[in-house]
């Protein structure tokens, strides 16, 4: 009898796999259940966003930004339009700013709901996912009422918005917030404080702060690692400096700081904060104002470049725009938060089990549309 030697097996997770959140492919080397190497292969959803942008006018870029992070289209619109507005030095009316914040925060809630639900699905809990989708539907109803679309809104325009808020939106929005806030506790009871869920996620996939910063991981994933970094607070854009909200950071309540459970917890807390921001914005929303007032006749930013970051639900969403003075941008680069988060996957997930890799991937909340662009 010789020594029992286990060969490593190469396993392709994806591009068609139930829990790769799209068309991600992970080439993993496994030794039994233990995963010893992970190599993400991306690009299956590459739609030449940046090449398209060079051939269309600025306002035509906005629908393309919708399709990058299709879970949080409002936030992508937001990032692009404020970058162009800053180049053109446009000041938008108060009312527009407020509506933008309302929409961005509602979209943040919707995006987190999907992220948490899909994370639950990845660790095998089916029911919370459907509960969260049910409530996400209500947000989508609000969006539909506002701009007619449920997923790809093209709502924020350079200098304004496509539509004013419809009649009855405020009541509906308040109704939703009142309905939604207690639901967060329900989800937490069902999933977050479930013993099995804690077993599956605490101490798993720990992302230390320095590694997170070095890998450019941002957003809830970085905050889960205990770094208080939120562009809405640290580099306030639009009118975020007017609102009161906390930036939740992971505390390692169930294990180590920066584990999957912390990332989950941070997202639930952020939903609560977003509810608070939307409440404040709804209350302070100016009655007067024309959302089309500041729309420029021609969108032709002066020669130059800008790198503008905003806080999307997944982290720092950066737009690098170069203008040569013509009606279409000379270069648009989207710095996607999910792209950097995915690049950190192999560091934090190697050495864990197959099931954990899926859980860690779920906790990073990636959207392939944004990674592949």
């Amino acid at each position, binding site marked *: 009898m010789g020594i029992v030697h286990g060969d490593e097996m190469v396993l392709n997770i994806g591009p068609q796999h139930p829990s790769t959140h799209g068309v991600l492919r992970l080439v993993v080397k496994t030794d039994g*259940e233990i995963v010893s190497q992970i190599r993400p292969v991306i690009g299956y959803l590459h739609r030449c966003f940046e090449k398209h942008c060079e051939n269309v006018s600025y306002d035509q870029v906005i629908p393309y930004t919708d399709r990058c992070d299709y879970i949080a289209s409002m936030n992508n619109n937001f990032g692009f339009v404020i970058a162009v507005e800053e180049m053109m030095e446009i000041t938008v009316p108060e009312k527009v700013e407020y509506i933008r914040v309302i929409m961005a925060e509602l979209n943040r809630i919707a995006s987190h709901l999907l992220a948490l639900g899909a994370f*639950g699905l990845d660790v095998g809990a089916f029911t919370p996912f459907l509960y969260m989708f049910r409530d996400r539907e209500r947000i989508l109803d609000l969006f539909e009422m506002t701009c007619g679309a449920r997923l790809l809104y093209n709502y924020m325009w350079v200098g304004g918005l496509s539509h004013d808020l419809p009649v009855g939106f405020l009541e509906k929005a308040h109704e939703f917030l009142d309905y939604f806030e207690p639901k967060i506790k329900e989800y937490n009871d069902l999933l977050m404080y479930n013993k099995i869920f804690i077993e599956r996620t605490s101490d798993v996939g720990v992302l230390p702060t320095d590694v997170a910063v070095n890998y450019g991981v941002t957003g809830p994933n970085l905050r889960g690692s205990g770094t208080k970094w939120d562009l809405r607070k640290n580099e306030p854009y639009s009118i975020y400096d007017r609102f009161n909200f906390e930036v939740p950071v992971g505390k390692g309540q169930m294990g180590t700081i920066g584990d999957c459970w912390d990332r989950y917890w941070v997202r639930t807390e952020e939903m609560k904060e977003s509810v608070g921001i939307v409440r404040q914005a709804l209350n302070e929303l100016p009655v007067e104002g024309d959302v089309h007032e500041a729309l420029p006749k021609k969108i032709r930013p002066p020669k130059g470049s800008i790198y503008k970051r905003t806080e999307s639900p997944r982290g720092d969403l950066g737009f690098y725009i170069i203008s040569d003075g013509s009606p279409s941008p000379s270069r648009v680069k989207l710095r996607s938060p999910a792209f950097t988060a995915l690049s950190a996957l192999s560091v934090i997930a190697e050495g864990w089990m197959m099931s954990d890799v899926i859980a860690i991937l779920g906790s990073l909340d990636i959207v392939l549309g944004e990674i592949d662009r």
Partner: protein
Amino acid sequence: MTVDVLIDWLANLVDFPELAFILAVLICAIPAFLFIAVYALVAIYGELKISSFMQDKVGPMGQGPGLHAGKWGLLQPVADALKLLLKEDIIPASADTKLFILAPFIVFIGAFISFAALPFNQNLIIADMNIGVFYILAVSSLGVIGLIVAGWSSNNKWSLYGAMRSSAQIVSYEIPAALSIVVVIMLTGTLSMQGIIQHQDGLVWGILPNWIIFQNPFTFLAFFVFFISGVSECNRTPFDIPEAESELVAGTFTEYSGMRYAFFFLSEYANMFIVSGVAAVGFLGGWHSPIPGFLEAPGWGLFWFLFKVGMLIFVMMWFRWTFPRLRVDQLMNICWKVLLPMALLNIFGVGIWTVLAGR
């Protein structure tokens, strides 16, 4: 309806004892198969609707008789079954064809022949063997061989993963399950299913039915050990790691489609019935009424047995739609570090209790 009685009766009618034997077995097996099929349809419908109500949705509504195409969707499982029957039978080119075809049947046989020893009421049992419990424990583990064969012959890495996981899991969880049944055997002094049930007649502690679960604290614990192990043996959530659709696509069943997949499905539901049935017989008084002497006729016996089994199956479905899934090592930890010591403790405790309390 014991099969022996049938054999004797038939042997008087025909001259060949072999023919009598085969006929008797067929007469028993065909209704059992039909029962499993009908029960699976009901259980699938139940699972669809129960999961729907738990998830705040309506569930199947399209199929079925009545207005609005039947808003209860009563014929949904029939439609599902028909769909599976009519689907193309795909056998992967690189699969080991013979084993691939054989595997679903091995799994199903394991579940099917266990029904022979399940007492549905005072008389309705195919074979009341004097080793009934032992028989069920033995043949129900046949299924795992089928799962390994399925995973291996599919020639698919996901299937292989599922097979390795399920074999490790089922073999491990059989131990606490069997040890918990030992408690029952200690108390009743028999391995016969009917004998175990007859032992549970009357009252205990003055008010409670004399079911083994209520007889002492250790048996109470033993029931839960057995049931949890049983859930795991059926590969149901939170122990569904062999299928684990978010990790292993469909685990062992990845390459299966159509009728062969339906057989796996059928076996899973049949296994749920067996585990619940053994739990009901061993701990919950089998076909005894919850109130001794009340509605104890054989017809009601059937009702009580199915009711108890149904409740346990409902609990399994409830688990499935509530819990996340455990990881492989955690699963093994629970088995070897929690359930097994508890099962041993129960045996010890029941022994002491029996000596001290004298019953």
